[in-house]
């Protein structure tokens, strides 16, 4: 076991080369709905139980399922109103279970990236072939359902192995949302190919806000605005990235959607905000900033794998 994952260089948030975004935007803003499928009776992973109670854990299963049945549609409407396309962190088995949701998102030109097969199948203990299998399954499943080649990754339930990032790069995945060390993208050390960390703003994830910090919905709306204000201010010096990671099973409830929608309106009504997707941020970053940053950090820029 490693003391330090050594996935990226130490890079203080001071005197960095200026990051620019299209049209002089100060901040790249993206929204990441996690559209997840949790199984009623998944197999056990030795490192982690999928459910707190004996199967079937009806209460918690249904709590998650609410997102796909009710919450998603409300969340999507709030995003539509602000012209925000989602970058979906997808349990790819949703393509089989709920093609209705996939179609609605594809119609809106939302981005799909992989969040594993199910959010009840963890990577702990996988051998390399098994880990390759979930990446290949993700690529094939999303391609078949949407015609999109996935460009990003957020490990299912944030479960990893020591080889996860090397494999992602090998398959041509452009960005990972799994590393929370920064508010700007950064090259990641991989064996072959290239990979960047995409700022995912985990601390303003609705799961963290509601389930860890036990926030009220209006307070969640407030921290989203405060998070934006600070990163927008700093973005005048060098472009920043803000993400709002969401789960429709939380934010999509009637008592929570209002303050979220208001924060979204607040953010998108500012000048100089690039309302975009993670894929577009990654593509722009590779084109304009990746190689220079690698050289600055003493890394060899990786070749693109298609």
């Amino acid at each position, binding site marked *: *076991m*490693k*003391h*330090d*994952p050594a*996935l990226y260089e*130490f*890079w*203080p*948030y*001071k005197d960095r080369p200026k990051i620019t975004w299209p049209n002089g935007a100060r901040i790249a803003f993206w929204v990441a709905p996690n559209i997840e499928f949790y199984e009623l009776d998944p197999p056990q992973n030795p*490192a*982690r139980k999928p459910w707190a109670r004996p199967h079937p854990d009806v209460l918690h299963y249904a709590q998650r399922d609410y997102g796909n049945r009710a919450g998603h549609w409300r969340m999507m409407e709030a995003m539509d109103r602000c012209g925000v396309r989602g970058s979906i962190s997808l349990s790819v088995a949703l393509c089989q279970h709920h093609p209705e949701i996939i179609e609605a998102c594809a119609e809106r030109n939302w981005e799909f990236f992989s969040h594993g097969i199910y959010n009840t199948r963890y990577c*702990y203990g996988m051998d390399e072939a098994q880990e390759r299998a979930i990446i290949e399954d993700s690529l094939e499943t999303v391609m078949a359902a949407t015609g999109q080649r996935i460009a990003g990754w957020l490990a299912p339930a*944030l*479960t*990893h*192995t*020591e080889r996860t990032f090397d494999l992602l790069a090998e398959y041509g995945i452009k960005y990972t949302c*799994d*590393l*929370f*060390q*920064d*508010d700007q993208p950064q090259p990641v050390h991989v064996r072959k190919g290239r990979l960047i960390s995409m700022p995912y703003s*985990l*601390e*303003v994830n609705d799961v963290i806000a509601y389930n860890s*910090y*036990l*926030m009220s919905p209006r*307070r969640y709306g*407030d*921290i*989203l605005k*405060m*998070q934006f*204000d*600070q*990163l927008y201010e*700093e973005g005048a010096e060098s472009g920043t990235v*803000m993400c709002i990671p969401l789960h429709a099973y939380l934010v999509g409830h009637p008592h929570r959607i209002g303050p979220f929608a208001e924060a979204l309106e607040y953010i998108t009504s500012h000048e100089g905000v690039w309302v975009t997707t993670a894929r577009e941020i990654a593509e722009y970053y590779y084109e304009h900033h990746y190689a220079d940053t690698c050289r600055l950090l003493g890394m060899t820029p990786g070749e693109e794998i298609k």
Partner: protein
Amino acid sequence: MSLPADYLEYPWRRHGMDHDRYPYLSLPERKPVSWPNGAKVALWVIPALEFFPLNPTGKPFKAPGSMVTPYPDLRHFTTRDYGNRVGIYRIFRVLDELGIPASVAVNSAVAERYPALLGEVTTRGWEVIGHGVDMDALHHSGLDEATEAAQLDKSLDSLRKHSGQLVTGWLSPAKSESFATPDLLGSRGIEYVCDWVNDDMPYAMTTSSGSLHSMPHSTELSDRQLLIDYHCSEDEYVDQVSDAFDCLLAEAGRSGGRILSLPLIPYISGLPYRIKAMRRALEYVLGHDGVWPATGAQILEAWRKGQG
């Protein structure tokens, strides 16, 4: 079934404390302290630079902020690392703009891994406080004294070498000590320790070695306790710092100088949505006359002068 007879024996039942580290002396009985230039409240800001290993032993317990999920817990590793890469730089900027020096508690692992970060502290002329090796190297009575001494030396030798400072303050990781820790600190040139959260003012401790003082590093008013443990909002944090300051300022009018200590964790207070609250709290304090922003070593020195 019964308990052994000595369970009802009370060998330390006496006037004062149940140990000999320090005598009891109530706050109102203290000799009033004068701060430089007639200041009433010393403002002591104490950010911590901590390294949380990805593979902690968790012995004898996991320090707050340690890894949570099965290995490799990249979620917690990288969110903690955010503090040392991004959050602390926001805090530096606020403290610079407000002209506040800090005492920065540093794990020696941070000094070794990120020399540029330690340089931010030393080039400002701020104080480095010894903060152990890393957040998985706790001091506790499960270690024999030689092992604990070696752990202490590993941290202090490294911090003194890399900072060029004497390093006279100490904050144990997670405020965890063994029975021997104060003795070991006293014999290594440590003048003050921040682990004993039982007072608002410094006081002398008794050790088998050198002189050692306790300094009031407030856990109760820390960003971790208020924002994370109590789930307070940023506004509630500002209110509590302001209320604490108001109370201390009023007491200082009657009882001599007081100290407002503000421990800051960069991955907590340095988040984009929290940094302005930290600034507002400090601005509130600085908006009053009679505030002396100082390091722990400066505060202790002024306190000792007044004790005669």
